[in-house]
């Protein structure tokens, strides 16, 4: 099956070349960081996690989002997802590889990374996160490959693989739950110390992952002659809509708790994210545009989806716009605001703002490009198999 990645149209090769360029830039930036240390990033003593960890957090969600295809297809036997379930599994693989790369990029001593295994520490949530992330990655590789191979031979997949498919369902939930637990179990970080973080992560994941799959389907429909089917896309938009609404609802609950209780610790981060935090005569607000942008994107995207449902129209372009808006709103919410906002103010009630450096951005973009590179190859294989069956 692998040979399928070697044959493609010129758009395919151009796309890979563009990604390859970004990967090269990212690699060069990483070499610089490796030689000098994390001082090349914008992180500081006060904001000690930056883009790397925030992208990691967001991408764990994207990986978990594949569940929204696996669950209906395998558990509820929803046939319309038959063609695209494999896309969910392959998206999980590339998202998890990005996650692991972001973690490595963030380590101060990357060569000692294996210490997490040598000195396994079960009371650290990071240990469990490593376990479930690797577990989910391997499960998806296994299930994706076995099922695709069977599909290609046009036989039923072997029975034993379903055991792993069913195991992967709670695993998908666990990866994002445990990732939430990295944050929500820390005393003294009020913005994170909330039991709703895990459910909110899951809700946003179940919107972000499917949004990306919808976008991939639209792109492949145009460029790769792959039609996921109108019914499947429509069902996905319904899933995205409900998940995004639940995420918004959870977020508004955080607002209520903060602003109705008026407990300073519960308000400060929200204030910093949405209105700017005044401190010692200076207003800190560099994330405000992102958060309001996310709000606007989210409501517009939801509005478009709702409009399509109510007036029973279906238009691929509208779906594309809505999925893009929702994807970016969730990215700004979790991939920026959630992590950076949690560090403001610091435990000594001081404010330090975080602005990523060019080198850091280079690495971040490089890792995203690597993920999309892998995703492209995997989808190329999936679509190639699909075409082979059709002909």
């Amino acid at each position, binding site marked *: 099956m692998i040979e399928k990645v070697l044959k493609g149209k010129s758009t395919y090769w151009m796309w890979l070349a563009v990604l390859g360029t970004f990967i090269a830039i990212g690699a060069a930036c990483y070499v610089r960081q490796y030689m*000098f*240390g*994390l*001082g090349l*990033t914008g*992180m*500081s*003593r*006060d904001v*000690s*996690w930056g883009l790397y960890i925030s992208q990691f957090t967001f991408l764990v969600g994207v990986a978990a989002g594949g569940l929204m295809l696996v669950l209906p297809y395998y558990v509820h036997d929803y046939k319309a997802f038959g063609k695209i379930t494999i896309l969910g599994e392959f998206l999980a693989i590339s998202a998890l590889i990005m996650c692991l790369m972001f*973690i490595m990029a*963030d*380590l*101060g*001593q*990357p060569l*000692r*990374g294996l*210490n*997490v295994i*040598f*000195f396994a*520490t079960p*009371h*650290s*949530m*990071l*240990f469990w996160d*490593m376990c479930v992330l690797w577990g989910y990655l391997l499960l998806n590789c296994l299930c994706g490959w076995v099922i695709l191979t069977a599909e290609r031979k046009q036989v039923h997949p072997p029975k034993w693989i379903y055991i792993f498919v069913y195991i992967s369902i709670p695993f998908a939930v666990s990866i994002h739950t445990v990732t939430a637990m*990295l*944050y929500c179990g*820390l*005393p*003294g*970080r009020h913005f994170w110390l909330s039991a709703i973080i895990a459910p909110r992560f899951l809700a946003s994941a179940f919107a972000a992952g499917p949004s990306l799959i919808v976008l991939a389907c639209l792109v492949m429909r145009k460029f790769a002659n792959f039609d996921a089917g109108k019914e499947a896309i429509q069902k996905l938009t319904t899933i995205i809509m409900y998940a995004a609404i639940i995420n918004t609802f959870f977020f508004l609950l955080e607002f209520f708790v903060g602003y109705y209780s008026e407990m300073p610790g519960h308000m400060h981060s929200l204030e910093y994210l949405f209105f700017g935090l005044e401190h010692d005569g200076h207003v800190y607000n560099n994330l405000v545009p992102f958060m309001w942008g996310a709000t606007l994107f989210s409501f517009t995207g939801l509005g478009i989806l709702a409009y399509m449902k109510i007036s029973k129209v279906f238009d691929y372009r509208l779906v594309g716009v809505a999925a893009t808006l929702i994807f970016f709103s969730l990215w700004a919410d979790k991939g920026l605001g959630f992590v950076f906002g*949690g*560090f403001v103010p*610091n*435990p*000594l*009630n*001081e404010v*330090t703002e975080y602005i990523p450096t060019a080198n850091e951005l280079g690495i971040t973009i490089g890792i995203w490009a690597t993920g999309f590179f892998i995703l492209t190859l995997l989808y190329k294989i999936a679509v190639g198999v699909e075409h082979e069956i059709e002909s």
Partner: protein
Amino acid sequence: MDTKRRKFLKIAGAAALAGIGAPAIVKLTSSAAIASEAVQHETAAHGEVAAATGVRLGMVIDMRKFAEQPELLDQAIAACNKVHNIPHFPDRKNEIKWIWKAPYANVFPELESIHKSEMAKKAPFAVLCNHCDNPSCVKACPTKATFVQPENGIVAMDFHRCIGCRFCMAACPYGARSFNWQDPRPFIDTYNAEFPTRMRGVVEKCNFCGERLALGLEPACVEVAKSAGAMVFGDLNDPDSEIRKVLDKEFTIQRNPAAGTKPSVYYIV
């Protein structure tokens, strides 16, 4: 738990009595691992509870004394910086701090009030790692590179094991930890060959001068501030220790006790 604890305190008390006549420093470092004289203490306190709880080192910071002598805190900080090869970075982003100064409002944000004493308004407060009894940094660390020394309760670091994930920095509710964003060595003012320098990419913080205690010395900051009575260091589990006498007499506060980490550093304000 309570009966267990009381029983332990009794044993520890008896053990301390057995140490009467020994130089004061013995009680300070009363643990087999950090001072040889303490072996006797350990044996005396031998028992199922004592082995687990043992000595619990702590500190009282008397801010009244520091306010009276403003230069004293600077000297204590300088002493720590010097013995521990703490680099001096000009920018806030790279800062490495083991003990430093901050206003009351920042050290005790939960206890901040409008009408506080002149001293709380003006004097800079000393801030350092609390060597918590239930440290969230230790709970978070995925490699045990930060850990509790069972013999004295110090929350210590293994710089050679730390992978630099900075989970402990997010977990510490007191902002006590610093990360080496770049090679710190060029930024060390005066080099002390007795203490290791750190490499880039690892976390560090106050170690309660574990290396000095092992030699029978007091922490460097305490050595400076002790004569003025501004800092008292000792075994919190020993009811006859100097620190316990101070704690019995004076009303003290701790930083953010609501975090549940049970800090071992107490402040007299």
